[in-house]
């Protein structure tokens, strides 16, 4: 039995604490600006597009498609696949792909969020849908 990979616990801060509180309940949150209507990730209090402070938390579907990926084969902790997922809601997010054959990932492939535990709040990852 291989030990599960150990991930670092998020430090968190007042701006992002709600994201991590929701993650503990298995919810993947994004921020949306009620002034310009745009969603963004990672979450900020001020909208990076229109600079309005009227941003609100929104639970995302957790579904998206692979924008790009790369399988890191030379790593002291073993191979891992990094990439970006374009969420159904629009924003693209950096992540790792897990719980699948890393050799068979494809751009455009449908994926869904899955949380992995840390010593603090769990971290979002993506796996084939």
């Amino acid at each position, binding site marked *: 039995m291989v030990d599960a990979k150990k991930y670092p616990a*998020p430090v968190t801060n007042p701006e992002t604490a709600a994201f991590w509180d929701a993650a503990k309940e298995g919810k993947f949150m994004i921020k949306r600006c009620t002034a310009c209507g745009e969603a963004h990730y990672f979450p900020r209090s001020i909208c990076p*597009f229109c600079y309005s402070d009227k941003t609100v938390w929104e639970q995302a579907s957790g579904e998206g498609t692979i924008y*790009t*990926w*790369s399988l890191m084969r030379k790593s002291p902790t073993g191979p891992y696949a*990094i990439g970006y997922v374009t969420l159904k809601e629009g924003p693209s997010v950096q992540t790792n792909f897990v719980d699948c054959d890393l050799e068979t990932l494809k751009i455009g492939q449908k994926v869904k969020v899955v949380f992995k535990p840390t010593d603090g709040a769990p971290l979002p990852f993506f796996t084939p849908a």
Partner: protein
Amino acid sequence: MTIKGKAYIAGIYEHPTRHAPDKSTAQLHAEVAKGAIEDAGLSKDDVDGYFCAGDAPGGAWPMVDYLGLNTRKLRHVDSTETGGCSYIIHLGHAAEAIAAGKCSIALITLAGKPRTGAMPPRAAGAEADFESAYGATTHNAYGMCAMRHMHDYGTTSEQLAWIKVAASHHAQYNPHAMLKDVVTVEDVLNSPMISDPLHRMDCCVVSDGGGALIVTTPEIAKSLKRPLVKLIGHGEAMKGPRGGKDLDLTYSAGIWSGPRAFEEAGITPQDIKYASIYDSFTITVLMQLEDLGFCKKGEGGKFVADGNLISGVGKLPFNTDGGGLCSNHPVNRGGMTKIIEAVRQLRGEAHPKVQVKNCDLAIAHGTGGLLGVRHAASTAILERV
């Protein structure tokens, strides 16, 4: 206001070392500073501007003190930190300061020892909790760019390999190069996969070392005995995922820094005789050639193939010292050596086997940070007078 023609590069020095376990990082800074000052025919007490980045131990004020610069005279400092392209940005900032009369002899230094020991980690950005666990490294961040470029434009590993092949053709003449063997496309494709789709030979070397520049006024440059190389255009830019909207990893911030520099210089990419292009990875070169306008977006693969970047063979000789892919990559930061080889070419001091004939216009371009995550870019256009 423009910096066109307001500043000259009067001194250059590239440290010959590629592995320096017996030296301190500050010592390497001092050795390259001394080398560039002597190359210009000046004294350290003439320096009145100092520029350094995150590799300088303690930052600007400890370095100014350690280097023994003349603090009665020193009146301008700049420690802008934009990773590997910091020194190309410093060159532009030095020209701005010189044009504004804030200094007249600027020293820029880079040095460090990543081959001897791991570099200290950078301070965390606001994104840390949302990214650091995913293990973005140079290899996989550039791998992600290459993967998407291949998807969108049909770029191939063979085409990327040609960039390494060209660099190796040049490195065979550089006695200081870490990798002097000429390699083939097959050699690159047969080297181990590091982070898909980049092979080991798509990656640059890791080396200790450094380099330095002296930038000065036209009047002082003309009073010295070195060939005259002036800065005629400069650009800088930054790019990141910007909240994840419309993510496109197939172009870099060079798409903005390049046109800014060409516009200031009043020339086009077709006028360039020699190009120093940051080659942290083969894909870095391909994307930047497109972004700078040497070919259309998506046609970089075709442009670099069949030896088009080899001096004396192709249309755009690049990185004639062997670049980061073969010669060195001091402190994991390629911007300084890009400027130095461009100056050598304009002076006619490159190795005779790779010297570009009638080289009167050159470009030095680089990026800093991670192309696949967030990064800076800077472009300098240089002219032989």
